[in-house]
């Protein structure tokens, strides 16, 4: 009969220990996320109500609701996506369909990587210098959205590039062989087949810009505004900035208010991301290749 030697048994024990250690580390890393959300929900729920979402902040932001901040965040996110989405998708098309494998392309890739790594406060400085002052947009929704768009561009390029590359090369060859031009192939074959992936990336970037604070700090967001923005040249409030303001700058805010604001912000982002995750898994099952 086979009898494992003590050496093998020791190995087996070591292996078990190792696996348990890793699995518990992994488990405990994700524990904080759950604790945080639960804890925000418990502390914030007393003030969370329909009124909280639909009323203006009053008494120097120590009471009332967060309606204008939601409106502001909506403006910023929509405008920035309108700018970054077309630019990012087209840039990705260039990289995937046109760019040759040469030094220039390598420089473009490096630029994208570095653009993604630029600290958000440096983006804010750039937005202030370029959009607010140089292009004379003033501190406005427009300037802030452009800044956000620059920040999101590398994210959208990378995710779009991935989904364009996922379309099998044989699809393109088939299209060329029936006489379609390169552009027609992109328009009728490559893009329709990669739209789901592109969409997922865009939705993720929406979630990211909704939570961004530093980049919009000096470019278009005000601590407090008594009115809603009327055009893109007005300033606005934002959910993320409001959380910063009432948790650090304003004295006498009841405890539950910042909790509820943080909860709304997180739930907003998580629901946007859930849409992206659902989209992705839905399209994955429908994929033809």
């Amino acid at each position, binding site marked *: 009969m086979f009898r494992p030697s003590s050496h093998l048994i020791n190995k087996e024990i070591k292996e078990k220990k190792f696996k348990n250690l890793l699995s518990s580390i992994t488990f405990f890393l994700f524990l*904080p996320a759950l604790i945080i959300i639960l804890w925000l929900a418990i502390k914030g729920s007393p003030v969370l109500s329909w009124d909280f979402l639909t009323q203006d902040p009053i008494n120097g932001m120590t009471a009332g609701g967060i309606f204008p901040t939601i409106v502001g965040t909506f403006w910023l996110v929509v405008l920035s996506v309108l700018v970054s989405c077309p630019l990012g998708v087209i840039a990705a098309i260039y990289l995937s369909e046109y760019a040759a494998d040469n030094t220039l392309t390598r420089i473009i890739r490096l630029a994208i990587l570095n653009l993604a790594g630029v600290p958000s406060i440096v983006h804010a400085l750039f937005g202030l210098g370029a959009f607010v*002052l140089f292009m004379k947009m003033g501190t406005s929704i427009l300037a802030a959205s452009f800044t956000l768009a620059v920040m999101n561009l590398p994210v959208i390029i990378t995710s779009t590039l991935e989904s364009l590359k996922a379309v099998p090369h044989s699809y393109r060859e088939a299209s060329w062989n029936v006489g379609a031009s390169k552009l027609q192939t992109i328009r009728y074959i490559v893009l329709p087949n990669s739209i789901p992936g592109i969409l997922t990336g865009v939705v993720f970037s929406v979630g*990211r810009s909704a939570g961004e604070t530093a980049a919009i700090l000096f470019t278009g967001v005000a601590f407090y505004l008594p009115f809603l923005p009327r055009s893109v040249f007005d300033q606005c409030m934002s959910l993320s900035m409001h959380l910063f303001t009432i948790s650090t700058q304003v004295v006498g805010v009841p405890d539950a208010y910042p909790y509820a604001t943080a909860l709304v912000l997180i739930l907003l982002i998580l629901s946007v991301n859930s849409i992206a995750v659902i989209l992705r898994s839905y399209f994955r099952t429908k994929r033809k290749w």
Partner: protein
Amino acid sequence: MSNSTTSQAFLEWRQKKTTKPTSEKVIEFIIKGAGFSSIILIAAILIFILKESLPFLLSKFDFKEFFMSTEWYPASVVKIRYGILALLVGTVLVTVISMLIAVPLGLACAFYISEFCSPRMREIYKILIEFLAAIPSVVWGFIAIMMINPLIINTFNVPIGLNILNASIILALMSLPLIVSVGEDALRAVPETYREAAEGLGATKWEIAIRVLLPAAKNGLMAAALLGVGRALGETMAVLMATGHSIQIPQSIFEPGRTLTATIAAELGESPKGGEHYQALFAIGLVLFILSFAVNLSADYLIRGRRK
């Protein structure tokens, strides 16, 4: 004779077929332009930050004072001083300590998800990583103030909980998703044949992980750590809220400090546009830009090196 005219006609036909209509040319020109947008933008960021900080760099800037002095008194009535040493030390401290926490844990997690997990659990963990990565920095800052702050005060019995340790914990949590996902990619890029060969020799998973995967994926794992460093270095709102905001070189991790990013965020709003203080803050921005550039380039170099 007739043969040559046919081929002539064919050549003409082909010529017509392969010359693009003007509209197509215009569109392809636009596509090319968009392709270069990221180069243009990264250059524009550098140019605009240089442009705003140049007057300061040319007149008031004193290399020794700027990098060697801890005295940051941009609004002093007696003598205005711009020394960023304390801020630089603050940035380096929180980055290093957060990485000491996040890199080992993150890589352990990457090993688990890539090598030990069932495919189903892997999908679940990946979605969790995405959720963790989606929590915005201002919410992390809020958590630092409301949750970690009292936790540190009670556990270590210190007077203030908004300090270097707090910011490091928050930064570690924030950069974990990035480290885990890049590290996992690096591990999965190791060819399956390596694992099979090791298994055939009777190696256990633990031995495979340490003796085979670790050396094979070394560059990718280092890149993961470096990207985490880049993330921690540039983080603004969370460290602004968590570090306790005092300009000094911290003597221990329980003392408050301040980082480069937080200084810009805190002071730019109150410095008059075009003034010296304002320009000095842009100069800090330039330092940050160069630092993050260097970190990202080395991460890229490591990843490319592996592919070659």
